[in-house]
C-alpha cells in the first residue's frame, strides 16, 4: 500500500494523500449508526484528469475506490467496506457556468450546496437551485447521486430529475458524458438521447465518479411566504396533500410530526412554501392554496395555523436547521434517519408504523416527509437521535432503523440511500430480472469490481 500511496501522491501532490491512522480514522465512519471501516488511504483529486489517473491506477492494482462528497449521507455509504481508498471530491468545487436564460448551472463533482447557493445569491440573485436541508457542505453530486430532494421538490421533483447531464470517470478510467453536453456545448437537458445518467443515479457510487454535472435552476422570488396546515387525523393527509399540490403553486411541502415541543404532539403539520414576483401574485397563490383545502377548514376538522411573520422567518430559512437541532437531542452527536420513498396514499400507515417503532424501541424520534412533484411521491422520514458515546443508545437506534426499513418495505415504500442491511432487504424484494441487469451493467462498467464494493450486493 505504501507504494500505491506514493503513486497517488505523484498524481495529486503529497499534501492531498494520506495513509496515516488519523485520516483513516476520520474517514472510517459518518454520523450514523453503521460501524466504522477503515480505508487504507484517502486522496483528494483536484481535476478530472487526476480522477482519471487515480482510477486507472486503482483499476490496474484492483484497489477499491469509494467516491465521497460531504460524507453526510448518514447511512454509511462512504465507508471503504473492502478497504482501498476514499476519493474525497471536495477540492473539485468550482461553479463552472451559469446559463441564466436556460436556467441551469454546470458545476464540478465536489461543489457544495452552500457554494452554489452563495454563488447564485451573489451573481444571479434572480435564480436559485433546490437546496436539501443537509448541512451546506453536502455536495450536489453526492445528493443527486442518491436521488436527494429539497426546497423545490414539489416544483421540480427529485434532485436527480433536475439533473441535465454529467461528466463521469468510469472505474476503468474512461471519461464519459451523458445528456446534451455529449453532443452540444450546452448542458440543457438529458433528452432526447438514451439516458446514460441513470447508470450513475441511485447506485451509491458503485458505477463511476461524477466529475461535472448540470443542474436546473429556478426563479428566485422577491416575495416568499409559507403556511402551516394542521390536522389531527393521519387518514386525511393523502387527500390534503393531493389537494394542496393540485393547485401547483407550492415550491416545497414538508409534513412533520414530533412529540416535542409539547404543543405539536399528536398533530400533523404541513409546511407549504411558495413565492411570487409581486405581493399581488403572492396573495393570489395563498388564496389558491387555502381554497384547495377549504372543505376541511369549513368542517373545522383541520386548518391553517395563524403565524406572525417573525415566526415564519424561521421556517423560511434555507436550509432549515430544525433537523440538525433535533440531531443533538440526546447529545453526543449521533443522528440517522430512514427516508422511505413511497406513494402518498400510504401516509397514515407510515405514520402509525413510526409511532409504534418509537414506542417499542424507546427512541427519540421526529417524523416527517417531503412531497415530491405534484403529489407524485413522498420521502417519508423517521429520524432518530442517539448519543454516539453510549453504545446502548446506538444499538437502540440501530434496531429502530432496521424495524423502520422493514416496515417501509412492507407498506410498499423503498428505503432511500439505504444502509447495507436495507440494501439487502431491497434486493430480496426486487424483481430478479432487475437485479440481474444491475449486475450485468456493473460488470461491464467495472470489470474489476473496484467501485464502492460491498454495496448493492446480495
Amino acid at each position, binding site marked *: 500500500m505504501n507504494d500505491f500511496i506514493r503513486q497517488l501522491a505523484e498524481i495529486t501532490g503529497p499534501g492531498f494523500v494520506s495513509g*496515516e491512522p*488519523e485520516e483513516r*480514522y*476520520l474517514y472510517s465512519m459518518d454520523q450514523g449508526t453503521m460501524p466504522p471501516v477503515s480505508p487504507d488511504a484517502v486522496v483528494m483529486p483536484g481535476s478530472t484528469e487526476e480522477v482519471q489517473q487515480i482510477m486507472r491506477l486503482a483499476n490496474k492494482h484492483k484497489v477499491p475506490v469509494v467516491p465521497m462528497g460531504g460524507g453526510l449521507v448518514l447511512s454509511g455509504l462512504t465507508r471503504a467496506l473492502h478497504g482501498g481508498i476514499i476519493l474525497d471530491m471536495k*477540492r473539485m468545487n468550482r461553479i463552472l457556468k451559469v446559463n441564466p436564460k436556460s436556467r441551469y448551472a454546470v458545476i464540478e463533482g465536489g461543489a457544495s450546496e452552500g457554494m452554489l447557493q*452563495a454563488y447564485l445569491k451573489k451573481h444571479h440573485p434572480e435564480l436559485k437551485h433546490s437546496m436539501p436541508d443537509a*448541512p451546506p457542505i453536502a455536495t450536489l453530486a453526492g445528493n443527486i447521486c442518491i436521488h436527494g430532494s429539497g426546497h423545490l421538490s414539489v416544483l421540480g421533483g427529485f434532485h436527480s430529475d433536475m439533473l441535465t447531464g454529467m461528466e463521469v470517470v468510469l472505474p476503468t478510467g474512461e471519461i464519459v458524458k451523458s445528456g446534451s453536453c455529449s453532443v452540444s456545448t450546452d448542458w440543457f437537458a438529458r433528452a432526447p438521447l438514451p439516458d446514460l445518467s441513470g447508470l450513475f443515479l441511485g447506485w451509491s457510487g458503485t458505477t463511476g465518479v461524477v466529475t461535472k454535472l448540470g443542474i436546473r435552476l429556478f426563479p428566485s422570488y422577491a416575495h416568499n411566504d409559507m403556511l402551516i396546515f394542521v390536522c389531527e387525523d393521519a387518514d386525511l393527509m393523502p387527500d390534503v396533500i393531493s389537494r394542496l399540490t393540485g393547485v401547483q403553486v407550492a415550491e416545497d411541502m414538508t409534513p412533520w410530526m414530533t412529540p416535542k415541543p409539547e404543543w405539536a404532539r399528536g398533530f400533523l403539520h404541513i409546511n407549504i412554501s411558495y413565492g411570487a414576483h409581486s405581493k399581488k401574485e403572492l396573495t393570489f397563490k395563498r388564496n389558491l392554496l387555502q381554497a384547495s383545502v377549504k372543505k376541511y377548514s369549513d368542517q373545522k376538522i383541520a386548518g391553517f395555523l395563524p403565524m406572525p411573520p417573525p415566526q415564519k422567518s424561521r421556517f423560511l430559512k434555507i436550509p432549515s436547521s430544525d433537523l440538525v*437541532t433535533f440531531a443533538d437531542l440526546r447529545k453526543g452527536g449521533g443522528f440517522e434517519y430512514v427516508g422511505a420513498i413511497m406513494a402518498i396514499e400510504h401516509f397514515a400507515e407510515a405514520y402509525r408504523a413510526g409511532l409504534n417503532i418509537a414506542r417499542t424501541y424507546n427512541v427519540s424520534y421526529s417524523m416527517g416527509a417531503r412531497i415530491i412533484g405534484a403529489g407524485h411521491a413522498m420521502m417519508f422520514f423517521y429520524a432518530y437521535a442517539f448519543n454516539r*458515546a453510549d453504545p446502548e443508545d446506538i444499538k437502540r437506534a440501530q434496531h429502530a432503523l432496521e424495524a423502520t426499513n422493514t416496515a417501509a418495505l412492507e407498506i410498499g415504500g423503498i428505503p432511500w440511500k439505504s444502509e447495507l442491511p436495507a440494501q439487502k432487504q431491497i434486493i430480496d424484494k426486487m424483481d430478479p430480472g432487475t437485479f440481474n441487469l444491475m449486475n450485468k451493467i456493473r460488470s461491464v462498467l467495472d470489470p474489476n469490481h473496484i467501485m464502492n464494493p460491498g454495496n448493492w450486493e446480495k
Partner: protein
Amino acid sequence: MWLLRAWLDGKITLSQRFAEIMFSCTACGNCTEHCPFPGFKNLLLEAFTSGRESFLDDGLVPAGVRDYLTRMQLHGNPYGLPGKKRADWAAGTDIAPFTDQEYLFYAGDEGSYDNRGQEIARSASRLLAKAGISFGILTGGENSDGNDVRASGETALFEDLAKKNTDLFNNKNVKKIITLSPHSFNSFKKDYPKLGGNYQVFHYTQILAFNMGKLKFRENPEPVLATYHDPCYLGRHNLDYYSPRMMLSAVPGIKIAEMDRNKKNALCCGGGGGNLFTNVLSSGYESPARSRAREAKATGAKIIAVSCPLCAIMLEDAVKTEGLAGDLRVMEISEIINDRIM
C-alpha cells in the same frame, strides 16, 4: 473533535501526525461560528486547547511549536529578542513613556519586533496622536500578551506571562489599554481579569473610529477600491466588525468592496495560534493566506486593508507568492489614513 474523542476512547494514540493536525488549528473560531449545536459549540476551542495541552504534556509537539514556546519562555516574546528592545519601534518618534496618560499603548510582539509590525505600530500611534488621544508606552519590561501561547495549550506559560504583565501594569497604575494587535486585545479583555489584570481594553480601531471627525483629510484624494480583511480576534472572537469599517468609510476617496467571506464568515489569514511562527500550516497554494489573497483580488480592490499586524505579515507574504504584488497592496488602516490626512 472526532480525533480527540477517539483518543479519549483509546481508539487512536497521540502521534506526530495527530500533533500536526492539532497544532495547525489557528483558533480562528470559524468552527464555533458555524457549529449548529448550541452549548457544545462554545466548548470547541477549549476542547482543542485542552487537547494540545495533552500533547505538550507528552512532549509530542511539532518542532516549530516547541521552538516557539521555548523562545516565549526564555525571552517573553516569540522572536527570541531581548525584552529591553521592546520599545525600539518607537525610536525617533515623540511617543512618551507611560506615566499618567489616559491610555497605555501596547504594541505587542509583532509591533515591537517585526519590521513590518513596527511600521504599523508607528503608523497607528501617529494617528492616535493626531486624533488627540493621550497615551504612553512602556519602555521595556513587558512580556508577550500570551494570547497565542494560551491557545497552544501551554497554560502555565501563559499564566506566567500574564502575571508578569499584570504586575507591571498594576505597578504603573494602568487603567486603560489600547492594543495594536487584536490578539493582545483578546487576552487582556477576556483572560487577564481572571488573573488580576482589570483594565478597560480597546483595540486601536475602536478608539480611532470615534475620533475620525478630528482628522483633517486632504482634498480631492485619488479614489481607490479597498477590501477589508477581518482579523479573527477582533471579529469572530470579540464581535467587532464595525470599528475598522467605520474608519475606512470615513476616508474620502476610499470605497469598500467586501470579499465573499466577510465579518463572521471571514477566512483567517492562517497566522493565529502561533502559526505565524511555527509554520505548522502549509504555505502552499491552498493555504488560508493565499486563498484570501486571491479572494481579495477577485473583488477588484487595489488595497487589502487590515487591522492586525499578524494579518498584515501573513497576507503580504501571500500576495507576493501569488504574484499579485503589482496589483494589490496590503495596508494597515492607519497607514491608509495617514497617507490621506494633512
